[in-house]
């Protein structure tokens, strides 16, 4: 046995030596050079890439002693404009009690007046008796209730899409939806006036962001053309880079509507997908309240993803995304705000379902809301010192100063005086708040005026005249 093994080893050695003699010269020379190179590398001195002089432990101790970090938070001055919140006692409905004064509410986004609706409250009560308050788990782990499934079904039917998905918080809806589809290396064309939630979603997605001027289709087309030229230089990369256009139906920051039909033309011309954020236009625009797509008569299948929050027209909490099943189903595993967060409390879902029922039964409230918007828009024109920013039928308007008083701080102080004046005369208004240092394109300071279906025409006229008085007395 051992002899046979020995013979086997010798056999291999003989073969090796034979191969050595039979190999071509260049092969031997190449192998020889490689072996010499390896020997040299093995014996050469190792060197570090960075000249990192290692500190002695004593030096480290000294550095640790000396180091002084910044305080965890910088001090906030007592009269910071955003520090003292106005306290609302009781429900923020049509008649609201702010800081003890009873006012008419022109500041909450309660467009269809469903915050106070008895039917909605009864539905929520019934759900409270059956399910309790919280769901005690995310959707994947016994946090899916039949009300959630029903609400998703109803929203999909209402918006006439295949499927919808619910989130438990409005801000998290679009901020989780964007990173689920758009990853590092993809390109997103987004409007300058996009809201903060969209900006955070884009930041989380780490994609390339290209801003185009607000509602300027020509600027967007210019950017798309430039991108096309880039693509031709590198077609391989272009074939795997996804492209998205991200717009809002009604912009929160400027109150105007996006030019959807032109955007759809661009979509098919340049092969970009459209994501539409309809927080303010859901339940406001369109003959039956289905939003911007109904308003323009565009086929909803042309939009890849519609995202909205239920905190405005539906007077509930949370948000939803709807679209084709192929698109929406992906979020069930990769939407972070969906998978890693507790689901929506069932009483809020039941309230949203009842609110949808009311919307479907009374389609004329949308026309009434639009009439009221037109009325106040006209009434607020030609106020000396203030300009109205927003479309004729937008229920969330901004009042900006015609001439700025120098610094943003001074402008905000002036606007605060106008707001206080109106508040003293029973009109509740609020300034639009922004996080100054983090917004990409900070809008100018403004007062938010919100129109709801519950406001009567006298109240609208009264509000307009009080604002006019305020402007005249304070800005002159």
């Amino acid at each position: 046995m051992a002899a046979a093994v020995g013979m086997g080893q010798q056999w291999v050695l003989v073969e090796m030596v034979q191969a050595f003699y039979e190999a071509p010269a260049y092969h031997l020379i190449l192998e020889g050079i490689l072996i010499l190179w390896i020997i040299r590398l093995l014996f050469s001195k190792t060197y570090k890439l960075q000249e990192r002089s290692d500190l002695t432990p004593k030096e480290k101790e000294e550095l640790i002693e000396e180091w002084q970090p910044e305080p965890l938070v910088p001090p906030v001055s007592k009269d910071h404009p955003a520090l003292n919140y106005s306290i609302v006692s009781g429900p923020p409905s049509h008649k609201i009690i702010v800081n003890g004064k009873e006012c008419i509410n022109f500041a909450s986004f309660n467009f269809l007046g469903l915050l106070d609706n008895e039917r909605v409250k009864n539905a929520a009560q019934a759900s409270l008796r059956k399910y309790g308050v919280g769901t005690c788990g995310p959707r994947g782990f016994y946090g899916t209730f039949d009300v959630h499934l029903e609400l998703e079904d109803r929203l999909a039917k209402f918006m006439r899409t295949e499927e919808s998905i619910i989130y438990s918080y409005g801000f998290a809806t679009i901020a989780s939806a964007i990173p689920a589809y758009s990853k590092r290396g993809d390109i997103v064309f987004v409007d300058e006036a996009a809201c903060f939630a969209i900006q955070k979603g884009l930041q989380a997605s780490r994609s390339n962001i290209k801003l185009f001027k607000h509602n300027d289709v020509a600027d967007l087309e210019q950017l798309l053309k430039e991108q096309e030229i880039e693509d031709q230089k590198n077609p391989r990369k272009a074939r795997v880079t996804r492209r998205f256009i991200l717009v809002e139906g009604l912009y929160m920051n400027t109150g105007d509507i996006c030019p959807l039909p032109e955007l759809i033309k661009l979509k098919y011309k340049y092969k970009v997908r459209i994501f539409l954020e309809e927080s303010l236009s859901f339940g406001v625009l369109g003959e039956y309240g289905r939003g911007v797509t109904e308003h323009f008569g565009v086929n909803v299948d042309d939009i890849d993803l519609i995202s909205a929050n239920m905190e405005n027209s539906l007077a509930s909490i949370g948000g939803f995304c709807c679209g084709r099943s192929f698109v929406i189903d992906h979020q069930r595993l990769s939407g972070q705000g969906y998978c890693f967060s507790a689901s929506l409390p069932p009483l809020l879902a039941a309230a949203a379902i009842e609110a949808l029922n009311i919307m479907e039964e009374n389609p004329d409230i949308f026309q009434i809301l639009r009439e009221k918007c037109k009325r106040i828009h006209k009434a607020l024109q030609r106020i000396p010192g203030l300009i109205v920013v927003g479309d004729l039928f937008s229920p969330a308007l901004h009042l900006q100063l015609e001439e700025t008083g120098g610094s943003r701080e001074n402008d905000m102080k002036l606007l605060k005086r106008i707001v206080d004046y109106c508040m003293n005369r029973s009109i509740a208004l609020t300034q639009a708040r922004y996080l100054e240092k983090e917004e990409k394109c900070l809008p100018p300071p403004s007062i938010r005026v919100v129109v709801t279906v519950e406001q009567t025409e006298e109240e609208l006229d009264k509000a307009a005249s009080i604002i006019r008085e305020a402007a005249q007395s304070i800005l002159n």
Partner: protein
Amino acid sequence: MYMFSNQDFVPLYQDFENFYTRNLYMRIRDNWNRPICSVPGPQFDLMERVTDDFNWTFRFTGRTIKDVINMGSYNYLGFAETEANALKTVADVLQNYGTGVCSTRQEMGNLDKHVELENLVAQFLDVEAAMVFGMGFATNSMNIPSLVGKGCLILSDELNHTSLVLGARLSGATIRIFKHNNMQSLEKLLRDAVAYGQPRSRRAWKKILILVEGIYSMEGSIVRLPEIVALKKRYKAYLYLDEAHSIGAVGPTGRGVVEYFGMNPEDVDVLMGTFTKSFGAAGGYIAGKKELVDFLRTHSHSAIYATSMCPPVAEQIIRAMKCVMGLDGTTQGLQRVHQLGENTRYFRRRLHEMGFIVYGNDDSPVVPLLLYMPGKIGAFARHMLTKNIGVVVVGFPATPIAESRARFCVSAAHTREMLDTVLNALDELGDFLQLKYSRHSRSSRPEL
């Protein structure tokens, strides 16, 4: 994969990214997203669903599976209840205030209920001030970016929750990860950070923030708080403690890990937690010194752009917290905390005795039972359902692929009989599926 009418568009998903989803997850998909149709208390009713095409689609038969023992919901103190008496104040607030708020905290959404709740939370935790937010996940992802930014350093535990990771990424600070609950790894990172400063420019770091959780939801381990506080004091770092699972669930009176270790709440710079788990509601809070809370009131993304918490949910938290603190005049809250502790210790002891490998600290109500083999995940969950017990199983990618586990959440509302039923079923199933891996009577990961 091309869409039907949209030829020439770049594909939305890449084939290799969802390889795992299509081939592995789909086969056992029926163990997740199970819809229920009752309150998620110690027992619930499941909607029966069947699949005709191997889990690609489901349909409901219309029948419900009644009284399934619930070992999956985060109902630690048993506040997920529908007793009319208990929910009376919540129903009143719902009738009075409605469901929505329709505005942000800084504009017109700051209700008196929020002020009441914040004062109560500050009293509960024994700190100066607190601020509440509408969603627990969003509390982390929207406030960490306000506290730290570029030029700061975040030291985060290996197994931190997605919300902490997202918040850290959105802040723009440098992130360094230390091994799970490993103090040597953390100290080494701290020493190097303070001594060497920022990479390349060598400037000193502006601040260092340590992100840890009270109880880790997939491991059941409790953070080593005294050692971390000692380290943070020595190296002048700041500590952010996420008590999502531990508030209300550990500690002699349910005040969380700070009380469990007998420490001073002032030692932790930022106390964060959620109300979803122990209080049966939704939302999150951040508490600490008054300067911190004032800063967050003015600079938090949530206060400026996101709707505030809805009033009935706030009332539920108020009544649950008052119950735990004993302010409602009964000792029911304290009883619940003690019952939870007893249930936890009993459950864990029996599991150890049976020979299962269980991770985590002996006092944590989160009990992960190791299955290891991905193939056993489906079998385990389906068998437990036939015995009328609902369990949560977790696999890749939430855990490493060879460390799949079943995670039990013990609740104060579970009776001894329910726990015994579950333990007997586990005993049988452990023998059938050969899950009793333990060769000792204690867990084989002592550093947890």
